[in-house]
């Protein structure tokens, strides 16, 4: 409870300091939203010409796209402190020491060390694209589907958070490979925005069994859109999103604490 109160208080501080740069906030928000929107419009133009991607209509792809974008945007805001670029800078400049000098839990301090509220632009855009998807698909909304949708959304946020935390962990050893980490996080979102069966076999296996991103958006989408599973996974694969999300984040934090121990024994 005390932790939650401090969290809210420290996040409020971040928000207040960002409000001091209001113009930058507005420009960045609009810029980020515009970038995603243009990306989606490009996709839409390609799709209207070819009709479908792997048998999925524009509305159906927009379902994946909108859900992925809004979840990633939310994660990018909440996990700002774990963004490898931000976190790596703390390691590089030695300011991580200051977290160790405060009588607070480390995750609480990292979560509140940064809060990029302009990511709201990306979230808003994702929601718009998702609304477009709802208007252009004929999803039959049942109670299980209505209950599962927020679970899928939260699980995906946690999953992406896990990727950021793993990226941050690598920074304990090297800060030279931030670009490589970005391939996994940003590349991962792009990948998840498309139906998974268009990728080749080894990629599908990798994104189901190693980094389980396929279980977060694609498989739940099969359930929402009442589509058959072209990959022949067992039926419960449709409902593994929370397991994959929570599991990834959990494993990521276990790794991160290992990184902290490495840091306190080497100081680099």
């Amino acid at each position: 409870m005390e932790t939650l109160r401090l969290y809210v208080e420290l996040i409020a501080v971040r928000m207040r300091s960002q409000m001091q740069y209001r113009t930058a906030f507005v420009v960045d928000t609009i810029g980020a939203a515009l970038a995603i929107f243009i990306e989606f419009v490009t996709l839409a133009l390609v799709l209207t010409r070819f009709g479908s991607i792997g048998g999925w209509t524009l509305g159906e792809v927009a379902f994946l796209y909108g859900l992925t974008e809004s979840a990633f945007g939310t994660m990018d805001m909440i996990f700002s402190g774990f963004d490898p670029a931000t976190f790596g800078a703390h390691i590089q400049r030695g300011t991580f020491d200051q977290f160790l000098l405060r009588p607070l839990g480390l995750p609480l301090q990292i979560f509140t060390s940064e809060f990029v509220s302009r990511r709201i632009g990306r979230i808003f855009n994702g929601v718009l694209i998702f609304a477009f998807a709802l208007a252009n698909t004929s999803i039959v909304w049942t109670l299980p589907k209505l209950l599962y949708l927020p679970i899928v959304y939260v699980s995906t946020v946690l999953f992406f958070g896990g990727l950021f935390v793993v990226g941050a962990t690598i920074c304990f050893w090297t800060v030279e490979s931030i670009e490589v980490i970005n391939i996994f996080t940003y590349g991962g979102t792009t990948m998840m925005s498309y139906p998974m069966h268009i990728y080749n076999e080894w990629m599908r296996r990798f994104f189901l069994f190693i980094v389980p991103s396929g279980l977060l958006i694609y498989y739940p989408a099969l359930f929402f859109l009442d589509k058959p599973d072209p990959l022949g996974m067992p039926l419960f694969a449709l409902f593994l999103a929370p397991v994959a999300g929570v599991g990834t984040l959990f494993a990521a934090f276990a790794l991160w604490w290992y990184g902290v121990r490495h840091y306190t024994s080497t100081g680099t």
Partner: protein
Amino acid sequence: MISVQHLCKEFKVFRHRRGAWGAVRNLITREARVVRAVNDLSFEIARGELVGYLGPNGAGKSTTIKMLTGILVPTSGELHVNGHVPWRERKTYVGRVGAVFGQRNTLWWDLPVVESFDLLRHIYKISEARYRENLDTFRALLALDEFLHTPVRSLSLGQLMRANLAAALLHDPDVLFLDEPTIGLDVVAKERIRQFIQQINRERGTTVILTTHDLSDVEKLCERVLMIDRGKLLFDHKLDELLRRFGGERELLVDFAEDYAEVSVECARVVARDGLRVTYRFARDDISASALIARLSERYRIADLSVREPEIEATVRRIYEERLLEQTSNREDAKHAKTIK
């Protein structure tokens, strides 16, 4: 208060090969060399002491401070501060210590100073009354009022140091670690910070460990000096003992009343002569200043005189450069070895 026994810290240093091929090889095999940054360090510091921790760059000073503050885990040895093992009980421990690492800001960059303080009140769970009391004291001692409502990012370096010092003490820590607290400051700002540290140490009994390159900090603040080099403790004595042993030669400036042809005296040499004014140099082990003056005034009529102490700065530089302490300890080691035989 602080007890350090046989403390060691080893680091693995990897050799970095250059070039594209080197980078590939770095990934596969890395040549590691083990470096002992802190080597069998032992000392005790009592509650309320103000200790100067000195050593040349790379001597292991900051590694020691990092272990004392719980940032680094020792490779071996014992370390207790106020009954705590710093790294093992990090959260409880750091709630009872304060630290200011020179030129490193711990306050919220975009917030006014006073709002940062207010956040620290929540983080350290300081009671409202105690917080008020401390803030009022620090406002007066450090003249915080001129910038209390200024965002931290707009503070001058001197103001930033004052704000950080106050921030490190709001929660009444038992121990205060200061790493180069006066670096980059002008004379007036340095003096203000020194006075503040002294006052906190005397009035609150806060134990202070101070590392610095500015020896006037040490001269004005510290009674006791720990000096390390290459991870080993070389010296642990009172400040005047340091000067006595390694202070080099003192100078006596004499203005004679008459022009004497011969002005030499035992135990001192004439290093300069300019009309009636003669400068002598003498070692403190050979003769005391008063004995020398007495000896001179027996023979000559003196109009005026003054004694000049060697500067601590020069003294310590000499200790580092000539590795005086190492020679002494080696000699002692050799002696010790002989007696064992």
